[in-house]
């Protein structure tokens, strides 16, 4: 990918993260890393966003919020899970209120490793997401509306380990 046709906007939601990954995402926006030079803007409005960046894992209280944001985003859209919490639950995966990674709830396109994920790897993850976004756009793909019920069933089918 050598150029971008559009300026991709991101929306960030802090599921049940410890903040470590969130502040690193914010750090990406600031002069040291400055992703705004690629036209990437952090917006608060899901209807404006192309990339959903989630930190932290799914819990009972935030399930609905994550789904709400994801379903409100226009197509094409990609979801990026930042940090090991969003990927699998991380150090908290055995906690009683942690259901696991974000992919238990919504389809995730890119996983960014690290605890806390470093700004460099977050940027790398978002740039990878841009490629996927371009591809989805050219294919005219549209994501189905995700409901908790559906994912829950899937989740129980595939659930591994002692969580839940």
């Amino acid at each position, binding site marked *: 990918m050598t150029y971008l046709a559009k300026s991709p906007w991101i929306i960030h939601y802090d599921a049940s993260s*410890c*903040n470590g990954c969130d502040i690193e995402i*914010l750090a990406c926006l*600031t*002069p040291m890393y400055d992703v705004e030079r690629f036209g990437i803007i952090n917006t608060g409005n899901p209807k404006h966003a192309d990339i959903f960046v989630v930190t932290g894992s799914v819990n009972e209280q*935030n399930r609905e919020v994550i789904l709400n944001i994801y379903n409100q985003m226009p197509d094409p859209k990609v979801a990026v899970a930042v940090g090991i919490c969003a990927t699998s639950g991380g150090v*908290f995966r055995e*906690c009683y209120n942690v259901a696991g990674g974000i992919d238990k709830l919504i389809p995730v396109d890119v996983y960014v490793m690290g605890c806390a994920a470093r700004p460099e790897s977050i940027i790398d993850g978002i740039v990878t997401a841009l490629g996927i976004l371009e591809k989805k756009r050219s294919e005219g793909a549209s994501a189905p509306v995700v409901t908790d019920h559906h994912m829950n069933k899937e989740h129980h089918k595939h659930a591994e380990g002692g969580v839940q």
Partner: protein
Amino acid sequence: MSKQITIPFGPQHPVLPEPLHLDLVLEDEKVVDVIPTIGYVHRGLEKLVEKREYTEYVFIAERICGICSFIHSQAYVQGIEQIMGLEIPERAQYLRTIWSEYSRLHSHLLWLGCFADSMGFESVFMNSWRLREHILNDLEATTGGRVIQGVCKVAGVRRDITPEKLDEMVKGLRGIEHELQDLTNVFLHDSSIQHRLKGIGVLKKEDAYQLGAVGPTARGSGVAIDIRETGYAAFGKINFRPVVEHDGDCYARCAIRAKEMFTSIDIIEQCAKKIPDGPVDMKVTGAPDGEYFSRAEQPRGEVIHYIKGNGKKNLLRHRVRTPTFTNIPPLITLLKGCDLADVPVIVLTIDPCIGCAER
């Protein structure tokens, strides 16, 4: 009386990096009541003490919050050391003090940036965060991590800082001091910022005390509590005075954080001068048997870690009382009667850290 309407504020809101949900009950533009809902980032990590050994649990304690990370791990290991009666090497105490002040610097700069952004001063946000990178670079160079350091352990610290590096750190901090001064001057003297902050969201001294405010929220109202004065780690050997303001408004709380950064630099410099040679950790055997309330001063106020063990590798109970949690009742008082447009600014002046508060 006009009709009341309820506006939801959060959990996903542009000024909040973290999810806090407030139901604002409005009469025209005035907030008459506030109903908070929390629990969006609750993980239930305190119960993990039953599954992790007390030495491993330091990593979990550190991840209570990514902003106050170091001080959480410090408060936790302090508790364990007290129960086990460990006299840890003095050099480790000094190093902990240095890192905890670095955390305070990075947290306050982060806050100043977010706060400026909430008022629409984007360039100030960028500038604070640019300066913050300097602090993070030092933290990364000495601990290996930017926001989660993982350097504290039971009975000491994992890494040492060489005298040359200490020297360089102090010089570096003195080097950015004038930039910090320029930055804080904006907060303290810019007329439009003063207009947004002075006389807004006033917390009276009695209220601050009665409602259990801690940290800058309490000190902004003239309640001079700063747990660092109890002399934990190496604070007992350091000369410093907590910053106290008396107006209790948004401006006072902002001024406290702006001024505290210079206190932190002073503390780091004194530590670098006084730090004794010696080992930075010691061997631990056995397991904690007993209970202890460990207190430490976070950037947001006093944090209490309650630890109870019964001589086994796994603790019986770990409980954290975080500063944001006790600052929520004062916040509710502050919001009643304010204008809707001031809500984001007032919420931010208590520096809410939801990750801590809900764990």
